[in-house]
């Protein structure tokens, strides 16, 4: 089938059920999208686990482990879809260089406290939710669409957990400061997550192939529409507001900006930087990249080394 009639078929709402009869670049594009999603779910496991060590009580720790189990399950679903497309998933997960994982840069910045963890549950999981909901609504790949029903339902609990804990912490004067500090660096990092603005990147292939519905800027707006009111309700400052005239959220800080990952702070005083500079930082990966990926690979690697010995 040529590309045009294939795209036409997708437009009529037909779902693809397997790699047969699909143009090669459809499969490649689907694989790329799935790998980003799978890697993102997977890296959140060690990232969230690290911060969960600071859980204030046993119930909180149990909830965090529940979330971690869900994330690992979601990763497993996405890798299984990749396996069905002929990808060698074992080597993808366990042999890949940490720098080649496709998760967003935000996860390469370590989460160090319960406060940062619950903000991640509210911000990062919201970003994941916005992106996955878009895929759920628009994807042309049937097996993924069906799998996302469960994923999205579980993610709503994560959001609830994050927002509930943010509200608990906001009521404690000391924790409140810590919360604001976490919001300060994590808000802009999540804005960045959605990628290049539409003026710099179109996603014609992804949209034609029904792998994506909305553009980066639209998804960024959707995330802000949930997150900005949440922070305002809790009395937390964020560098964005709703502009009723433009009928959209406006970012109030230099964006994109230079990020000091070691100190978790934005160098807004330098003014906006270019997206090329952002891409450069992303490619260089963040401080926790090696540690977190290492934790995912350690058990598999040890056993393999024992076998080889």
């Amino acid at each position, binding site marked *: 089938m040529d590309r045009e009639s294939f795209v036409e078929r997708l437009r009529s709402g037909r779902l693809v059920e397997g790699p047969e009869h699909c143009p090669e670049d459809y499969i490649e594009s689907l694989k790329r999208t799935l790998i980003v999603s799978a890697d993102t779910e997977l890296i959140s496991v060690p990232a969230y686990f690290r911060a*969960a060590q600071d859980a204030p*009580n*046993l119930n909180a720790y149990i909830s965090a482990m529940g979330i971690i189990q869900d994330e*690992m*399950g979601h*990763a*497993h679903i996405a890798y299984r879809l990749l396996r069905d497309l002929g990808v060698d998933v074992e080597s993808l*997960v366990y042999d890949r260089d940490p720098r080649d994982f496709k998760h967003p840069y935000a996860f390469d910045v370590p989460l160090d406290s319960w406060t940062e963890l619950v903000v991640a549950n509210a911000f990062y999981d919201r970003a994941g939710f916005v992106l996955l909901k878009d895929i759920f609504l628009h994807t042309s790949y049937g097996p993924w669409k069906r799998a996302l029903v469960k994923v999205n339902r579980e993610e709503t609990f994560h959001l609830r957990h994050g927002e509930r804990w943010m509200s608990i912490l906001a009521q404690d004067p000391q924790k409140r400061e810590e919360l604001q500090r976490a919001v300060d660096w994590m808000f802009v990092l999540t804005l960045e997550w959605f990628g290049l603005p539409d003026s710099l990147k179109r996603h014609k292939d992804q949209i034609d192939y029904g792998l994506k519905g909305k553009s980066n800027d639209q998804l960024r707006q959707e995330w802000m529409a949930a997150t900005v009111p949440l922070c305002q309700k809790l009395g937390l400052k964020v560098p964005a507001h709703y502009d009723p005239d433009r009928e959209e959220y406006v970012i109030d800080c230099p964006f994109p900006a230079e990020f000091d990952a070691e100190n978790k702070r934005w160098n807004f005083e330098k003014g906006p930087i270019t997206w090329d500079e952002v891409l450069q930082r992303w490619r260089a990966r963040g401080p926790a990249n090696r540690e977190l990926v290492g934790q995912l*690979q350690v058990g598999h690697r040890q*056993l393999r080394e024992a076998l080889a010995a």
Partner: protein
Amino acid sequence: MPGDWTENDAALAALVNLVVVLADNKYYLGRRLSEWVAGAPSLEEGVSAAAIVQEELGHARVLYPLLEELPFPHRPQPLEREQDRQRRYAVSYVDSPWPAWPHAVAALALIDTAITTMLEHLSGSSYEALARRVGRILHEESFHMAYAEGRVRSLCETEAGRRLLQEQVDVLLPEMLLWFGPPGEAGVEALRSEGLVAGDNEAWRQSYLGRVAPLLLEVGVRLPLGLQWDLAHRRWEWAELPWERWNRLQRRLEKAAVRQ
């Protein structure tokens, strides 16, 4: 409502100790296993391990409040965070993070099964609040047992994996045999006399071995301590256990001899 046994100080002391020992072992087992969720050898094993972690910690969560309701002056604090209490009532194997996955497999197969064996002897306890929780816990443990057995079998599919598990069994099994206590332990006798627990130290140990030893033998793991089935007496026999290093209050193996 607690019955008459609340007047029996010896039984009460032993019961408080038993509850904190069960809860602490569940707590630390859950914490240690949680450290291997991300690094499990496969995603499936990690997902299941995460489910077990929540249940182990959930079991600790429902056991700890019993400490607050027992009318006894010296009750250890329930654990919320790992460093909340210095004195630990858990086996030494769960003291610090495990360096490798086979430790987690050994712990699930040998520690969790020991706790379950103990709980089975508490399901008819005259302490009704405990018996009720135990019923629910045992219901969930059947899945843990199946998972542990599956991990043992999968690890022992290769010679190298079996060797790694062997090393851990050699370390851990002696501590778990000690864990059931010396024969005729005074506190246990008090618990028995009040109908708080069924069986005794030796019966628990035999029941435990009857459960773990056949699996180990089947997958080719050698039993340490010269453990063997005595056909004539229909019981497991072993050489000496290191009782001199047994901490009977915290029910754990210490590195050096313990003054009793």
